[in-house]
């Protein structure tokens, strides 16, 4: 089995993996970072979104070996329990979730889209969330949370 070294949330992690191990399984099962979820198994739902070298991607559609040498950020890497990331705090304040299963992917996607387009309007946010499914909320509060989170992220810097 090949060794891969991936910097996850700032920490270099080296593990032996099967070539067919998906990045999401590497994160969840080998590093025990279970905040990244597997929602659909068909590359459609976006519950598994992480940042790979600064871009939001579906970690269920990337092999761990493809991420060898890369930097990965997961939902565990953006804030602490004491001090949530502004986007996490916005989801809490605006109740941008019901069951919460899609939330890690939503937040990782939201941070990437705000990083790239800090002034994104509601229409843009909805469009940019196309790869993330929520089967509870109807998206209304998720979009409200992201718009508020964008302002909070701007004010933070």
């Amino acid at each position, binding site marked *: 089995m090949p060794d891969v070294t991936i910097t996850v949330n700032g920490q270099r992690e080296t593990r032996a993996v099967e070539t067919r191990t998906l990045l999401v399984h590497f994160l969840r099962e080998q590093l025990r970072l279970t905040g990244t979820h597997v929602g659909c198994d068909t590359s459609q739902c976006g519950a598994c979104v992480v940042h790979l070298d600064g871009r939001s991607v579906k970690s269920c559609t990337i092999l761990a070996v493809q991420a060898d040498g890369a930097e990965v950020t997961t939902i565990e890497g953006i804030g602490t329990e004491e001090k949530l990331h502004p986007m996490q705090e916005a989801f809490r304040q605006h109740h941008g979730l019901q069951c919460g299963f899609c939330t890690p992917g939503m937040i990782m996607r939201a941070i990437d889209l705000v990083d790239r387009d800090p002034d994104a309007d509601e229409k843009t946010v909805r469009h940019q969330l196309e790869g*993330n499914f929520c089967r509870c909320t109807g998206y209304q509060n998720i979009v409200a949370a992201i718009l508020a989170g964008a302002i909070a992220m701007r004010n933070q810097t």
Partner: protein
Amino acid sequence: MYQFEYHKPTSLAEALGLLAEDADAKLLAGGQTLIPTLRQRLVSPSALIDLAGVPELTGIGRSGELLSIGAMSRYAEIIESPMVRAIIPSLSRTVEVVGDPLVRNRGTIGGSLANNDPTADLTAAVLALDATVVTDRRSISADAFFVDLFETALEPGEILVRIEFPRPSRSAYIKFRNPASRYALVGVFVAEVAGRVRVAVTGAGPKVFRELMFEEALQRKFSPEAVKDLEVSASGLSSDLHASAEYRANLISVLARRAVSAALNEPSHGI
């Protein structure tokens, strides 16, 4: 997923060597189609040859009058390229409607073309814009490249290196999207390149094709009215749970008119 070997060559020559050695190996580009397919055990390659480390397949640039896009250019890179937007804005906009933003952060133009999905978007752009597919050994015209359902002119052991696009005088792509899959139920790309109008249709048949009746009408007069009364035959078009062949035939007419309007309204091509 079945087990497979994994190789990550660092040059085109090394990738070609690995591919020549193993007839059951598959090339891995962005993986946004291949990895889901592997997961469903619909394919079982002996090895994956990851092209992400091959420098010859990257880069967007101009060569003379042509816009050259490396096969491993990810959709997001193409969207963000000021050069692509300046030379062929309709191509930027086509890439913007591929899949979803997460797919666009990984998927590549070369992967899409080599896969030749009958409902892909980029195939229509390449065919309408009369682009040339350049491989490690030859240049293939768009008209010759798309052979059949998921089949291209690429031979075993051949690697797609880049795509060269001539600059159109006007062009636009209109997609009627399947909301579940985000693939094109039907998409029509209209372009005028070197004085010739080309109309490519994706999603409607077993592969992307040109609608010659529309091309002739638009060649005489490039306006939505020119194609208003043209009826497309449903014969040979796809019929499935998403839409009947007749529905798709009607969509081709509707979308062609919209694409012509969009091409006429497009700001003039810069640079």
